[in-house]
């Protein structure tokens, strides 16, 4: 079973886990993903690659508590183990030297655009990073992005750090001001990717988005991760996860992500009521948007 080197809280509901999987790391490239199973009874959950340390054979994933499996992940101790970590899965992000390339990361999407920014940089691009979150305490990786990017823009919805507003606002301003961006990679919540794709279409700048549909096997066998791109059905696990943002049907994606909403909430509620589970206070007080904690 893969060893978890460390599993550190980096935000109120955000954790960073490093897993020792040298064979996987040796093969993995920016833009690919892995599937993790926390324990024997657990689900298989796809996770974006948030960092690769080839020397030590370490894979970094950054995850936010959104339900039972991610809550259970927080309980894995430093030096502990998880049942499985399989990958690298999916296709690597397309990388070439376009001149100037931009990565846009929203919320938890700040993590996977970091290795992509690194890859863009290594290919010789001037890299612009735009990262944003709801507020300052949820932001992370400012330093990492700062080290890679030639220009870094930070924004928060509430103005608690950096630009007051959305990542798309910053991007629009840059494009309006004539920034010579030839390629954009946007990863984040679906509404953010939708808006970014919408605005970049007006400026006719190629824009890739990394899609995160529900999956089971991650190798093309189940078809659960099917997405509609340019009117065609694609499997995110083998055809993606990166797709042309101007062609993605975000409505279908949003709808399919909600397939198990009720079961997920029920499972989380049961976990939160379990006094034996070693959850931090913040996780134990977790509520879904629009839901009041009794």
């Amino acid at each position: 079973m893969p060893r978890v080197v460390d599993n550190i809280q980096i935000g109120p509901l955000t954790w960073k886990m490093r897993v020792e999987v040298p064979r996987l790391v040796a093969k993995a490239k920016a833009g690919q993903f892995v599937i993790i199973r926390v324990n024997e009874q657990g689900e298989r959950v796809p996770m974006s690659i948030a960092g690769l340390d080839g020397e030590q054979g370490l894979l970094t994933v950054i995850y936010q508590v959104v339900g039972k499996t991610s809550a259970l992940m927080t309980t894995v101790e430093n030096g502990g183990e998880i049942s499985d970590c399989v990958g690298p899965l999916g296709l690597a992000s397309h990388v070439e030297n376009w001149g100037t390339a931009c990565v846009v990361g929203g919320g938890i999407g700040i993590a996977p655009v970091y290795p992509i920014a690194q890859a863009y940089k290594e290919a010789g691009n001037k890299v612009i990073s735009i990262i944003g979150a709801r507020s300052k305490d949820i932001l992370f990786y400012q330093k990492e992005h700062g080290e890679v990017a030639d220009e870094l823009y930070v924004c928060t919805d509430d103005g608690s750090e950096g630009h007051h507003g959305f990542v798309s606002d910053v991007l629009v301003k840059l494009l309006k001001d004539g920034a010579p961006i030839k390629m954009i990679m946007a990863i984040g919540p679906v509404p953010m990717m939708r808006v970014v794709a919408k605005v970049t279409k007006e400026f006719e700048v190629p824009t890739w988005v990394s899609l995160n549909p529900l999956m089971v096997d991650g190798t093309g066998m189940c078809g659960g991760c099917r997405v509609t791109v340019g009117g065609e059905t694609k499997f995110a696990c083998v055809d993606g996860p990166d797709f042309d943002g101007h062609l993605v049907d975000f409505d279908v994606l949003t709808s399919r992500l909600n397939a198990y909403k009720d079961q997920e909430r029920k499972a989380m509620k049961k976990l939160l009521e379990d006094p034996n589970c070693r959850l931090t206070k913040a996780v134990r007080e977790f509520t879904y948007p629009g839901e009041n904690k009794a």
Partner: protein
Amino acid sequence: MIEKIEKKERMKIKRAEMPAQKPEDRVRNFNEVPFGLTAEQAITEAARCLECKKAPCIDGCPVEVDIPGFINLILEKDFAGAARKIKQTNSLPAVCGRVCPQEEQCEIKCVLAKKFKPVAIGHLERFVADYERENNLVQIPAVAAPTGKKVAIVGSGPAGLTVAGDLIKLGHDVTVFEALHKPGGVLVYGIPEFRLPKNIVQAECDVLKDTGVKFENSTVIGKMETIDELFEMGFDAIFIGTGAGLPNFMGIPGEQLIGIYSANEYLTRSNLMRAFDENDYDTPIIRGKNVAVLGGGNTAMDAVRTSKRLGADHSYIVYRRSEAEMPARAEEIHHAMEEGIEFHMLTTPIKFIGDDQGRVVQMECLNMELGPPDDSGRRRPVPIEGSNFIMDVDLVVVAIGNSSNPLIQSTTPGLETNRWGNITVNPDTMQTSRPGVYAGGDIVTGGATVILAAGAGKKAARAIHTYLSNGAPK
């Protein structure tokens, strides 16, 4: 012990009926449907065998089991010996005794079948394999002296496990790579618990492990290492048994609605991830009240019977041809009918209709009629214009087959495939266009059966052994 009786007398014995859970009970649980023969039943059934010298039944078996040989040992009450006799050529008797279509393989060739019912070879195979396992009489097979040759097997389904079982006994160093977290392939993710209990698959894999086969689960060859890298790692020969691939969908409007699964996904959630056991396992599954399964094969039967057990009020098979053309085993169709599955024959959906949450609620269908035969030799279904009607459904499972998974083919230069993307092989040796690389099972044939995959594995193992014995490049 039953004395050897005259052939005429033997023919008078009625074929054993396998005791099974009653339909009304079994639709509420995931336990195995048939209980298996009793020892007494097995001995009586064994007495029916005419011990034909030419043994046509063996010709019908893709893995050449010595059928009269093992049946004779049952008569002598040496049940474990009978199991071992089977295992000389078939590594997976407990599996094959359950899921092989004996009625079109060994049993159809049985001389008794001409005038009476054939010997229940499948039931007997299952009986002796279960007897051996349940009484802890399973022996680790003898292994030849190490040859120093290393074989990589990609995929741990029936083909891969057969190759592993045969080659380990011949003294080769065998490693099985499996993409999922448990070995067994379709035996674990595809075939439901009520048809093939997972502890049986596990037991078969454990025997291989104890014999020396190494298993590396959660390892996706083509992503982690390529075929060429396996050679670089020191493997002398490679067998590809990666199975069926990407699920086919209907390609009709509304197919992205929530509540429309491929059979692969539906069955994997229930079988591998054990979503049917919602108290102990975390993977969710949609439990429909009105479930339509599209297709007429064994996979469709597995899915529709699963849906009933997951609480459906109505579970339908929706199939575009008639019952006569259904590819599923007669026994599976029979079991499904007993369980109250409703069959809509000569029907095809043309559109799925969703609610405001994006969940499927209805399916628009057309009635079909049979026209002249098509390429497959079956009569082609033709839509009847204006016959449109609506079915209320809250879960649809698409079980219309798979196309090949490209993970290995796309990362292995020089590996030839046919126009469907299946790997092409020499049918006698299962060798691919790449020296030292063999393939078998669904990745070669497209969707077929467990035993055909095992048979392909058997052929490949023989050829790999010859290849390695004749001095494969080290």
